[in-house]
């Protein structure tokens, strides 16, 4: 489902997802700086730990939602030809949903 991103709701979604992503990135960068990853086992252990893979999946879903609201605003501002606008928005929406499905597959199946 494409979140109906307009008005106050889009404004709020954009900010909540932004704050979550900032906190996640802060944690991600600092834990990698504190405990550098040396090999595949280390990386896999870091990402697929239950709490981290959940947090990462939430991060990717927040990223996709945030990207939808942002790109939607950009398209609405610059693409004034209606059929082109609708086509672009549809392509972006499908691509983002596909990325979400892919991310879920990677983190839920690939991580096992």
């Amino acid at each position, binding site marked *: 489902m494409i979140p109906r991103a307009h008005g106050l709701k889009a404004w709020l979604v954009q*900010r909540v997802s*932004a*704050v979550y992503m*900032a906190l996640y*990135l802060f944690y991600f960068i600092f834990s990698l700086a504190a405990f550098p990853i040396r*090999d*595949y086992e280390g*990386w*896999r252990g870091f*990402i*697929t730990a239950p709490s981290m893979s959940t947090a990462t999946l939430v991060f*990717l879903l927040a*990223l*996709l939602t945030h*990207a939808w609201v*942002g*790109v939607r605003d*950009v398209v609405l501002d610059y693409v004034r030809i209606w059929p082109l606008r609708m086509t672009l928005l549809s392509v972006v929406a499908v*691509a*983002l949903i596909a*990325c979400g499905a*892919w*991310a879920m597959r*990677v*983190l839920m199946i*690939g*991580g096992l």
Partner: protein
Amino acid sequence: MQNKRPRPVFLDLTKIRLPLTAVASIGHRISGVLLFLAIPFLIYFLDLSLRGPSGFAYVIRLLDGWPLRLLSVLLIWALAHHLFAGIRHLLLDIACGVSRESARRSAWMVNAGGLVVLLVAAGALLL
């Protein structure tokens, strides 16, 4: 209400001077679009890196190559500028720094902060 007189249109890009706040704003957009375009590659690399030792090694090798080093520097700038501009936006939302002087000052900090991160990333990844 329809305006009968044609509105003045001034689009001479060589003469238009963007204020710092506008630079921070268009930079927020451009960096956002760049980060959006990076999403499938991010997920692809995550996928590859978790497939096994050889996939992980392949991702490391790709990231170590010059094309991706250059691209990484660009994306690190995009992330930094977008993050700083976003924090500025959140502060403006709670009416923090809305006066003209402080808005200009914070826009300057966003632009400069992005460039500092760009230089640090370029130094670390390209030298």
